[in-house]
């Protein structure tokens, strides 16, 4: 990645030579349970409210000395503030046995079981390449594939190169979803949520690597942009996936409606500005 950023910086990036894609593989990113529930249809605010409602002030006070969950002397009020601010529950604001009602515990147990069950069935793989970007007379970026997306044009304004990537957590999650969606739709839904949370976490991890390497090289990174966002149609998917050889490298295929299998896969473009 470092070498790649240096070639962007020094304008050594060849136009077509860099097409053979590169590969990145990650350990499992940390799980964010609140996000999983949010993807499964429980709004973050509800998760938050539920987590705090069971505590009375006196109880909270004892916890501020020593966290019931981790026992490490966390500052509970800081933890709640953090959760409030980010909308994401952290480990100290998760349900504790003392505060949860029986059905909340059932949901929480289902979530824990699901995380456990999926843990050895997911892979975190990215295939990416870097292309040099030039713009046509109307200001649209010129890509190895054609598109006339105003939103993408705006997103890539001023960029001289872009990382194009496909990321997937593999087909294990689809098997779990399939396994449960008919026999236990609630679990199926949890796995759906988990898949969405996991693949986004993978993209974030990869994106962080790009940002870090770019920063070191003194380059600016634009927010990642995916086919299907704004006016960039999903029918560019075959070209995007082709560029990173996604079928061979990640096993990603498209169906007749341009949807990806494994379903928890993402493609995106990250603009890099010199």
């Amino acid at each position, binding site marked *: 990645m470092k070498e790649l950023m240096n070639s962007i910086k020094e304008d050594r990036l060849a136009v*077509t030579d*860099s097409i*053979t*894609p590169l590969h990145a593989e990650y350990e499992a990113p940390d799980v964010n349970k609140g996000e999983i529930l949010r993807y499964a249809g429980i709004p973050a605010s509800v998760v938050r409210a539920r987590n705090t409602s069971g505590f009375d002030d006196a109880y909270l006070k004892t916890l501020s000395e020593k966290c019931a969950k981790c026992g490490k002397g966390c500052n509970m009020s800081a933890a709640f503030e953090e959760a409030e601010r980010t909308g994401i529950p952290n480990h100290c604001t998760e349900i504790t046995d003392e505060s949860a009602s029986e059905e909340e515990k059932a949901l929480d147990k289902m979530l824990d079981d699901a995380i456990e069950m999926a843990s050895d069935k997911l892979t975190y793989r990215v295939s990416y390449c870097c292309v040099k970007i030039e713009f046509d007379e109307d200001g649209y970026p010129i890509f190895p594939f054609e598109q006339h997306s105003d939103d993408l044009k705006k997103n890539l304004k001023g960029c001289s190169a872009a990382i194009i990537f496909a990321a997937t957590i593999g087909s294990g999650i689809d098997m779990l979803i*399939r396994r449960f969606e008919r026999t*236990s739709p609630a679990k199926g*839904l949890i796995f*759906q949520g988990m898949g969405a949370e996991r693949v986004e976490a993978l993209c974030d991890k990869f994106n962080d690597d790009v940002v870090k390497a770019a920063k070191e090289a003194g380059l600016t990174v634009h927010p990642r942009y995916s086919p299907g966002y704004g006016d960039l149609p999903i029918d560019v998917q075959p070209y995007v996936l082709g560029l990173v050889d996604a079928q061979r490298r990640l096993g990603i295929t498209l*169906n007749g409606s341009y949807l990806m299998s494994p379903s928890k896969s993402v493609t995106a473009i990250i603009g890099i500005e010199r």
Partner: protein
Amino acid sequence: MDLREYMKNNFLFLDGGMGTLLQEAGLQPGELPERWNVSHADVIVKIQKDYFDAGSNIVLANTFGANSLKFDDDELKLLVDSAFDNAREAARTSIGTQEKYVALDIGPLGRLLKPYGDYEFEDAVEAYAKTVRLGVAAGADLIFIETMNDSYDTKAALLAAKENSDLPVFVSNAYGSDGKLMTGASPAAMVAMLEGMHADAIGANCSLGPDQLIGVMEEYIEYASVPVLIKPNAGLPRSENGKTVFDVYPPEFAASIKGLLEKGVRIAGGCCGTTPEYIKAVKEVSLDITPVPVTDKNKSLVSSYTHVVEFGKSPILIGERINPTGKKRFQQALRENDVDYILNEGLKQADAGVQVLDVNVGLPEINEPEMLERVAKELQAVTDLPLQLDTSDPVAMEAGLRCYNGKAMVNSVNGKEEVMEAVFPLVAKYGGFVVALTLDEGGIPDTAEARVAIARKILAKAAEYGIAKKDIIFDPLAMTISADTTAALATMQAVHDIRFGLGVNTSLGISNVSFGLPQRMLITSTFFALCLEQGLSAAIMNPYSTEMMSVYYTFRALHNLDPNCTDFITYAQGLPKMVPAGSEAASSGAGSNTSGAGAAGTTSGAASAAGREVSQLQNAIIRGLKEQAANITKELLQTVEPLDIVQNDVIPALDIVGKDFEAKKVYLPQLLMAAEASKEAFEEIKAKMASSGNGGPTRCSFVIATVHGDIHDIGKNIVKLILENYGFDVHDLGKDVPEQDIVDKVVELHAPLVGLSALMTTTVPAMENTIKLLREQAPWAKVTVGGAVLTQEYADKIGADSYCKDAMETVRYAEEIEASLKAE
């Protein structure tokens, strides 16, 4: 020289990368390389000649992506023909003096097959067959199926190759860094399936460098009885000076390959990033090594799409519960096409610890071939256990074997000529591990000797079809001792003699032994233990029986088959809880324990039930506690009429949760958990009613489907579940359902209600067409639509009667329509 003959005593060298070299020669991203067979024939010939010059025995014609999904018929033929013209020209002009062969190269179609994708298995077979026929006509010396990252897709390609040619077929899969195919198959699982279908050589290519594939190759060598091949990448790509380069160079590449050849690999080449130089280096280092002979590993294997189960080491448990014999509730499920019930039966047995599932769906009034195919496919979508296809109908057996993803168990053949002649050809074609019963035209012999004699006869006949004894498992038949007290002795003797005399695995349907006796489980489980001691390799049994499972775990611990007694300890610690709800054992008293402890009839603590007086069962449902709901129902059924439970407990509880959902007090996961709990309660009620010969309470029928072109069915499944909970007679046609199929079902049932689901804007037209057809052919039906892209406005535009934003709204709408029908 004939390739099959040549490879017996020699290493075979393959070619190296093509795509990377074409890119260097100017192939543009997105351009289809096969078109270069015509437009840049000179480039292709040059690359292939360089490979032959470097010492390749086999060069792949440039047909990797030549299939009917990418090209029309005329162009496809032209491209395949010119691919072979080019490769033969390269062979003719090469200075190499080695044996040279040109392979038809077949890569994946690029579409994932059902159930995880949307492409039909048989369509894939047909697409591959087209390319195979063209390759055969163009004079291919062999067929090389490669870079396959899905086991089912691999089966489709190999089946097409075998059905349309007699050429040698090499099959190579692409493994990830976890040593598995993308869809989960281990190397051993691929060996089992591919050898069963008679691939001539198997192995791995692409994705990784030679060193990262060592583990995969070792597994191949351990399991495979055919030559093993490797065609790895030149390591991993990395960026250098703005260019992508591969990080393993020819000398190290060749050194790694040499190591693998010494371990037993027989066929080697390179994939992405490799060039003729790599092949030359590989050839040079191999000069001073002699090929390791290919030997029969003599393993008795069955496989699923993820793993193998090996017979002959630790005993194997085969779950017997997917079988309608003597089970009224199961028969009802089959008649009603209630596949979910069958799937649950499979999953419960998997949880109880079986390694293989027996699948018998034979009932006189159902279409068994269709049902067996459907159930096999659906089971493979939810469990990765290998299946034992259990049918006496050869047509059903073929339907099951053909669609099975892996190498199945075949239950069964016996010594009757007619049966062997019907079943053995299927096993020879599709692969399989065959249960053979030691009976013949003369019936079941009384003595062990006579049963062994039949076994010998069966082995001889199997050999005529090329089926080795490692792929046979004898069932010497357990007979009841209540009729003849010497019966068990004869069976045990036969187990012993077949296992240790003939050296073949054995299996028994254990429970027959106790038929007609009281406390059958005492006899059955002791007999199981005795048979295991005689060398029994597998049992078809009831995994819900604590006695049977206890015998299994103790036997393994006592026979040094359970290192550190780990499995036994886990089993023993879980004993009081391990009996799943709904099993026979549970109904005999264990059930009351759980319900007493958990439910206790309190309403406090359940936020959604707070302030309401609810019954125990209602409480369990509202809280989504499945086991409790089932156990309380079971207890109630002893004193309360089934329909009263539905009216007084289940429906009110669902209403409470439903209203809370509508008021946003609970959310989708909780709604579903409650629905699942009530389903458990319903299951108990249904079982009771089936056993008393009573149908069930049903409201009006509701046909539901995800429309043509759309494969999203989460929402639809949720709606279905909730509707079923409310007692509607839901007919779920699945996803991607053609317009006319929906209409036909509505007409057949004269269904008053139809629910259509679509997630994507692109499939809304299919929804509109379906509605149009319904108006013409089933004008009485009310159509409600839902799905992510739908709105009230959209629904009006396409002519739906209603738009429901979620499952509860659909229930309310259905109730409204039902009420208005009754009022008429």
